[in-house]
């Protein structure tokens, strides 16, 4: 048994639903009690979908348990086939049905339906949502392609000649973070390289699209949490190469273009020709990030301490962007994606960090509280943590919220995605010029601590959808050690008074630094001099 307050991922059958809801002609029959229908609203409300997800639930009740629950499954399958006429049927069970062992998938297989049936085993007591999505996609693709397997030995495909290269985009799903917009950006990049899109799977795909997957020359493994197992199988079974780089951030996008161009035998210069790494002008990139990050008002961003947590794909990319493209200092990096823990550990090592691999919300909260970063890049969970601790935050990863599905085009992949990222992540932090004006005005009676300034996120500026949390502009002191430990040093009245002279947006840090300094040195009472000793000790 594991105590859980908030959870990063739903159960594996929700992953299966995400695959079914992504596709155009697939139906999922779930052997599940009525309460499990809650999951429909994830699609209709978070993504504001204008149709029900293609899922039929058996909604068995206690009174059915003694009876013929297997009959319920067959009836549901028959009804769904008739009413929804899918091209392929997924059949699985939620946690409760798993316990009553009706073997819904096998039952459906035995019905000799006129469409392919994919029985799903979704171990609800050991696996989670992302695994369920990946497993469902993998089983679905294997089922559809079972008759198309080339005879061994499988040869790795080379660069195509005599025609335009073709690629599949694998992994975008319903309820994925910004998938809707990211695939547009990836399509744009491939188009600029002269690469045709053979199929995008599973988002908005048909079963026919899945059947055509082997027509492509290679696979773009866009969301490894969902599509890596499928991409690996396609590589093994069909010899199709796959990409390793995820194009999030300017640097990764450039790397992705180079990788894809190599796989396709295309000229990367069609895109990279206009990229001038290291050159600080507005014309140095298709993204505005490199120039905006060098604009002198961004100097203030330098060395901001950032904590990164999310799924593996977005967390790894975020850490690279934070460090190399925005000039932050990454002080923590972690993921709830245990399946890709190794990759996150490697990325953390390049930042000189040990990765935090956990799906325990409380552990993440504790890590953030201890590190006291200036910015948190995380999921909606971390947004709550950051809000509570008075730390700025931007959302970079699922699990998503309705705010993460904005009306406007809001990719995080590709060059346009980097622009979105620049706005979204820098916005919660104070903008250079305004901060320094503020610094001067801090004692002004008209500009008291309670009145947030226009540079603060809640007062405007480029926030990407659902993303920013303002640091607490509280007159009271956020994140003081006194909030957490009983043995924090005491402040003299003069010390407190001096602390109040420090602008509110750095006061929390000053307080914390001073208290830590005092604790480490066994100073029981913090005077004005302790404050300045600590200031001299710590970098600004």
């Amino acid at each position, binding site marked *: *048994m*594991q*105590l*859980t*307050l*908030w*959870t990063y*991922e*739903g*159960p594996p*059958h*929700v992953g299966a639903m995400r695959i079914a809801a992504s596709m155009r002609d697939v139906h999922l029959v779930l052997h599940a*009690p*009525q*309460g*499990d*229908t*809650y*999951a*429909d*609203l*994830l*699609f*209709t*409300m978070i993504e*504001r*979908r*204008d*149709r*029900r997800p293609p899922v*039929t*639930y*058996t*909604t*068995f*009740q*206690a009174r*059915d*348990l003694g009876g013929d629950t297997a009959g319920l499954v067959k009836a*549901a399958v028959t*009804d769904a086939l008739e*009413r929804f006429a899918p091209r392929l049927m997924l059949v699985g069970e*939620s*946690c*409760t049905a798993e*316990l*009553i062992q009706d073997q819904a998938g096998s039952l459906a297989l035995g019905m000799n339906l006129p469409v392919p049936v994919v029985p799903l085993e979704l*171990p*609800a*007591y*050991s696996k*989670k949502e992302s695994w369920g999505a990946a497993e469902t996609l993998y089983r679905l693709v294997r089922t559809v392609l079972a008759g198309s397997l080339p005879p061994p030995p499988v040869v790795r495909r080379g660069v195509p000649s005599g025609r335009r290269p073709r690629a599949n985009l694998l992994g975008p799903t319903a309820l994925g973070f910004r998938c809707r917009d990211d695939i547009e950006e990836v399509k744009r990049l491939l188009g600029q390289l002269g690469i045709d899109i053979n199929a995008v799977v599973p988002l908005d795909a048909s079963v026919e699209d899945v059947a055509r997957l082997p027509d492509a020359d290679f696979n773009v493994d866009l969301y490894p949490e969902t599509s890596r197992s499928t991409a690996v199988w396609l590589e093994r079974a069909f010899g199709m190469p796959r990409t390793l780089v995820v194009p999030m951030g300017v640097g990764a996008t450039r790397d992705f273009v180079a990788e894809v161009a190599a796989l396709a035998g295309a000229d990367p210069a069609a895109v990279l020709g206009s990229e001038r790494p290291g050159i600080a002008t507005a014309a140095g990139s298709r993204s505005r990030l490199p120039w905006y990050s060098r604009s002198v008002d961004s100097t203030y961003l330098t060395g901001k301490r950032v904590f990164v947590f999310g799924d593996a794909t977005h967390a790894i990319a975020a850490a690279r962007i934070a460090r190399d493209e925005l000039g932050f200092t990454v002080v923590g990096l972690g993921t709830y994606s245990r399946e890709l823990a190794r990759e996150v550990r490697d990325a953390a090592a390049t930042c000189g960090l040990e990765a935090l691999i956990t799906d325990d919300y*409380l552990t993440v909260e504790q890590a953030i509280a201890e590190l006291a970063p200036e910015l948190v890049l995380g999921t*909606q*969970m971390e947004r*709550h943590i950051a*809000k*509570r601790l008075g730390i700025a935050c931007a959302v970079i990863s699922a*699990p998503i*919220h309705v705010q993460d599905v904005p009306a406007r085009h809001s990719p995080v992949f590709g060059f346009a995605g980097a622009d979105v990222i620049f706005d979204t992540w820098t916005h919660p932090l104070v903008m250079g010029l305004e901060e320094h004006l503020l610094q001067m005005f801090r004692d002004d009676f008209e500009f008291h601590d309670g009145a947030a300034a226009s540079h603060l996120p809640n007062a405007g500026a480029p926030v990407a959808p659902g993303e920013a949390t303002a640091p607490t502009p509280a007159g009271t002191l956020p994140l003081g050690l006194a909030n957490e430990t009983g043995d924090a040093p005491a402040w003299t009245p003069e010390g407190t008074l001096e602390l109040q002279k420090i602008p509110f947006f750095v006061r929390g840090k000053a307080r914390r630094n001073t208290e830590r300094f005092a604790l480490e040195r066994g100073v029981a009472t913090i005077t004005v001099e302790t404050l300045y000793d600590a200031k001299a000790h710590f970098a600004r």
Partner: protein
Amino acid sequence: MSVVAEACRDAQPPAAPAPTKLFASGVAVPGATPVIPLRVLRERGQREVFCGLTGIVWLHRKMQDAFFLVVGSRTCAHLIQSAAGVMIFAEPRFGTAILTERDLAGLADANAELDRICVTLLERRPDITTLFLVGSCPSEVIKLDLAKAAERLNARLLPRVRVLNYSGSGIETTFTQGEDNALRALSTVLPTTHERQILVVGCLPDVVEDQFQRIFAALGIEPVQFLPARRANELPAVGPQTLLLLAQPFNGETARALAQRGAHIVPAPYPFGVEGTTAWLRAAASAWGVAPGRFEAVTAPLAARATRAVARYAPALRGKTLFMLPDSQLEIPLARFLARELGMTLLEVGTPHLDRRMVDAELLLLPATVQISEGQHVDRQLDRVRAARPDLTVCGLGLANPLEAEGLTTKWSIELVFTPIHGYEQAADLAEIFARPLDRRARLKV
């Protein structure tokens, strides 16, 4: 039943002529039209409703010293989180003890595991005085005995913490039945009193509770207790001199359990709308023996004010057709309010569970033509919605946007359990909830 008739006699006249009828049980209502048996369509099929765990979302907020620990699966945790929205910045006072393979395979003793989790949890949260162990579909299927667990833990933790248990499982309960089960669990530990009192049963927002409390005080009725109270460890008492006034139509099991403790149920419609509120208060006043003059003096100005406020929304709703899908068991009282005070035409009123003993007084007030449905076959019901093309469809959040996309105007039903809607001061708010979607559709020109 006579109390109900009494309560209804001087209710506000309906906004549109709505013939009352004879309830199947045969009780005549003044001015009633000829006896028509209640038409109830019972359906079985896919149900699109929440399970009883959802009630934790409002119960844990009402009782700020209680913790709700679901014993279940990741699905349970995900459900509550999704229903609550991802909006709470504090460590929540609910959680899930998620069963793992080890528990199922017998590698771990589930009982020992549960005890460990409870003790750890309570150490972390010294502010908790009451712990609810909440059964789920998986815990019931594997027959994990939470009553025994509560007993075991109470032996260890009382008096600092009391441990109670109830089922919120989707194979046993639908949505608001979770509250009923939770309150029933509480009812077993209420102290006994022989004092004459009123006990209002059903989770109400504090602001509504305060309003009712003021009215009862003006009527000279006291003490009036509420179940649940604002703190789980401040238990109201119950006994043979206790009059039970039911604030919600879905707490039948609780009412029956309290009746077994000797309390007397005061039959009444529910306090939704002006008419319902007056009838509900009148039933209490009559049972208490408040003089009719005093009752009028206290309630008439409140009712008049509320009537004026409700009237603002009648033009938008009068004559509009309404289709309610099953959700919270609030459907029947709300349909009564919408039909009688706002003149809406009821096409179908769905309810997940029709507990006649609980809605007798309401059914009496419904127009004879109403089609009530119990249970659900969601696809067939949606076929009926599409055929009827109602002006307003009340349904769950999984269905609302898809129906909007079919050109139908919808009101998502969960708002009705999350918003203060009881009593005089909220009567207009309740009307506005149904008027707003129609107002919006009229405004949008895009």
